[in-house]
């Protein structure tokens, strides 16, 4: 039978052996194998515990535990720190703690939110599954209107519960879902938030809304995913005009892309805005000139990038939200988060599907 003193003696022996080995050039693997391996010195000693009396076993166990930790510590210490000399080697690489990354879409959303919150916008999030009324009808697109073709809509497999109440342009809230139910769809754009926001504030401007949410369209290719994110701005008050829209677009462009970037608006058409605009931002690569060294800039269209749509809120939409268009005007804009983000310098991603993949080689770059 062994006693604890014997065990302690053996432990000391092994410690001395390690001391010597540490000053030689054994590799990490060699040290680990010799001391902590399956047939290592520690294993040999620890098996001796069975030869101790029951009274001494607990204490022996503790000592062995401590001993093992010490062995591990001494061995790894040798390999994680340079040998202390009088001179410190500053070229030794840092030990980076392991952290992970925020998803690029989260980063984009945080930045976009902050930019608009600085000028008094209120961040909101509205439903992804919404009534057809909020997604189309309240936005001046009557049932069966061809304008709806612009968006390939996903329909929910629930019946259209709206009773046979006919559409009446002069009475936009007649077919409100709270009165007659309706058809549920996956929203194709964050514009479903416009009338919802008007309702949230009891149809009482001022409104400065930034709605950021998931949207869905029945389309999938290198530049489209069935699910994507949009952000929608809405400003309504007395005397809001096109100059204010331009001011807001310029402000965003400079904050998001840089002080030299400009915005411009060109004629377009949406049912829910009048006038309607297409919004461009100047290309940061060619400085908006359309040319690099007399060659055509490949990244943009003649010096400009199309970002998305905008417009002055159509009077019918204001009415649908219970706001008097004779008293108030407003503007709105709605763009893709992914598209807006990938227009940043150095971020022209060729395949948008990567954003929703599990490819760490992509995600960890951000």
């Amino acid at each position: 039978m062994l006693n604890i003193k014997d065990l302690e003696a053996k432990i000391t022996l092994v410690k001395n052996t390690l001391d010597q080995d540490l000053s030689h050039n054994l590799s990490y693997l060699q040290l680990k194998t010799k001391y902590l391996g399956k047939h290592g010195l520690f294993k040999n000693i620890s098996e001796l515990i069975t030869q101790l009396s029951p009274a001494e076993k607990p204490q022996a166990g503790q000592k062995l535990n401590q001993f093992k930790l010490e062995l591990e510590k001494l061995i790894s210490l040798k390999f994680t720190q340079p040998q202390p000399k009088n001179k410190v080697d500053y070229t030794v690489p840092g030990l980076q703690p392991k952290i992970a990354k925020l998803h690029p879409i989260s980063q984009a959303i945080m930045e976009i939110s902050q930019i608009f919150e600085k000028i008094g916008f209120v961040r909101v999030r509205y439903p992804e599954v919404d009534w057809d009324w909020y997604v189309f009808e309240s936005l001046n697109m009557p049932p069966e209107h061809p304008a709806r073709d612009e968006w390939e809509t996903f329909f929910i497999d629930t019946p259209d519960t709206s009773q046979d109440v006919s559409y009446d342009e002069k009475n936009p809230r007649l077919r409100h879902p709270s009165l007659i139910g309706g058809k549920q769809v996956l929203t194709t754009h964050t514009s479903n938030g416009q009338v919802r926001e008007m309702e949230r504030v009891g149809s009482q401007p001022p409104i400065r809304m930034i709605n950021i949410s998931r949207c869905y369209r029945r389309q999938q290719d290198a530049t489209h995913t069935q699910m994507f994110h949009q952000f929608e701005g809405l400003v309504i008050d007395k005397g809001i005009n096109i100059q204010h829209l331009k001011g807001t677009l310029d402000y965003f462009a400079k904050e998001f892309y840089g002080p030299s970037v400009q915005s411009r608006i060109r004629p377009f058409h949406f049912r829910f805005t009048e006038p309607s605009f297409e919004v461009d931002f100047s290309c940061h690569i060619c400085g908006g000139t359309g040319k690099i060294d007399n060659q055509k800039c490949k990244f943009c269209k003649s010096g400009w990038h199309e970002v998305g749509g905008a417009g002055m809120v159509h009077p019918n939409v204001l009415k649908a939200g219970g706001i008097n268009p004779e008293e108030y005007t407003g503007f709105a804009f709605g763009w893709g988060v992914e598209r807006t983000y990938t227009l940043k310098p150095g971020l022209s991603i060729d395949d948008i599907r990567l954003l929703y993949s599990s490819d760490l080689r992509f995600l960890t770059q951000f």
Partner: protein
Amino acid sequence: MNILIPHSWLLEQLETKATPKEIQKYLSLCGPSVENIILKEGENVYDIEVTTNRVDNMSVRGIAREAAVILSQFGLEAKLAKLDLSVGNINESKLPKIKILNNPKICKRVTYVILENIKQAPTPPWMIKRLKQIDQNVHSALIDITNYITHELGHPCHAFDYNKLIMSGGEIIITEAQKNEKFTTLDGEAFQTLGGEVVFKNRKGEIIDLPSIKGTLNTSVDEKTTNVLLLMESIVPKKVRYASMTHAIRTIAAQLMEKGVDPNLAPISMNKAIKLYQDLCQPDAVSPIYDDFPKPTKLPNIILDKATLKLYLGVELENKQVTQILTDLECLVTPKGQTQLIVTPPSFRSDLLAPVDLVEEIARIYGYHRLQSQLMSTALPLNPVKTQNFDLENKIKILLVHLGVQEFYTYSLVSEELAKQSDLPLLEHIKLQNPLSEDMVYLRRSLIPSLVDAKKQNPNQPDLEVFELANVYRPQKNDLPKEELMLGIVSGKNYRNLRGKIEVLFESLFIKNYQFLNHQTKSLATIVATAVDGQKITLGWIKVSQDNLILAQIAVSKLNKVAKTHPVYQRIAKTSPVIEDLTFGLNADTLVGEVINTIRSASKKIINVQLKTIYRNNLTFTITYLDKETNLTNLVIQPIREKIVKMIEDKKLAHLVGTLVSSKHD
């Protein structure tokens, strides 16, 4: 919709010296967007995007009209060419008329002419070139003239074989089809009506045309045709769309007519068509033009307040300038008093109905680029959303990322297989009526299956930990689903590791009194915490899966109920704590949590119990004793130590390893 306009063709309708680049630049700034100038058949061709409300721009002349107005604004000379409507000497055809029985409710105008004994000529080279430039097929002069005219002037027209019409009764009845009536289009495809489509029928009730959409085989022209009935009709747009969409026949004619082509364009188009047939197919005689237009277009009188214009633009424009722009756009403008204008738009601008429509016209021609740019200085809204806490969401994400958990974004729509893995029945998932692909059919009830799937895509990183903050969708009867924001985490490390991260997250959110409770029946732990008002709230759960992945899901709205933005300050004690270890050998069925809770409960002076090491079934706990008023002595602590051991051993949880050693603090 896009339209291709060859520059040389445009110049037949537009008198200007402007270059293609100038035309592209200025049109795009103030009107339809010229997306590209393409070289086709050796010439410049504009690829123009026309918005759906401007069907009047879907022709060469329509674009020329826009260009004439816009180029002038930039000081470039530009004029819309006058139409040459002369038709030269024609013999009048004495062929019997085709009787038209119209229903004015569904067809606003019918115009036709009979061309007697046409020559079946090939399409001339100049027309072939143009058709190729606009990506249209080449057939024969007889057919191609109709497509050419449609593209040039914007009103579709159709050539019938006159003899076939005579043989089928010499009548065209314009009516709505019943259900299950048959027709075969001119390219041989057979259809059955749904009921309600506007069709042409003969007196036998057979369908002989799908007007404004496509011709039918039984009346279509072919190589044997000698007499042609050239017809233009104006079917009500809603009906055209209905028939076209129902049967998926999306011809150019359908796409134009469903957007409301101006019926007043018919006479000009008819004239030009006759002229072309004369030149290319030399009919022996041409009948007088038949025209049935019972209700001429009633044009609205829109009253535009100058104040409205100023309101939208933020600047006042001169009366003269405003009137000039509207007149250039072919509106009739009459001043009303000092502050108003009565504006009558031309018949081809059925999109101009309200004052705000006129504001758009004036503003775009004046030039949006000329308007100033300034932020609004109106009042800020002071009503943040109460149901969402975006700050909390950001805090959670940033902290988890710094703890080494990678953020993922996965799709809200999942396959049937992934939906089933949510532990909720498939029937209790919201389903799409028209999914695009099998992998996206159901709105998910849990983030975990998608995250497990995503983690599995990285098999060379077994230690990978991932999280996502996203909605899950709970169906509700007769209402929209409840969208609940969840934090889902999947870890390839181990239980203590992930639990530790969650605990750190809670500590950072100043959530006190959180607990991980073994679930009664399921193999998982429920995570609970106490709200500010003292209510106990279930935050979520954590479990170890069959594949040894650690899974957790927490409801963010519940976190929001217990999270705080700052702590309750604890006065710093003037006394020192006593920190020492006790080791226990746990019995087989003992839960570690119970041991810790028992130790804690032994005395109010125990402020912390940490699990330090595990060696087989021997667990060492580090216990911190503190009295805020007096420094603790061994005299005080020893009884507590003994009480701890007694409580543990009495409950048969474990036995002390070693002896109770007195602390050195005496």
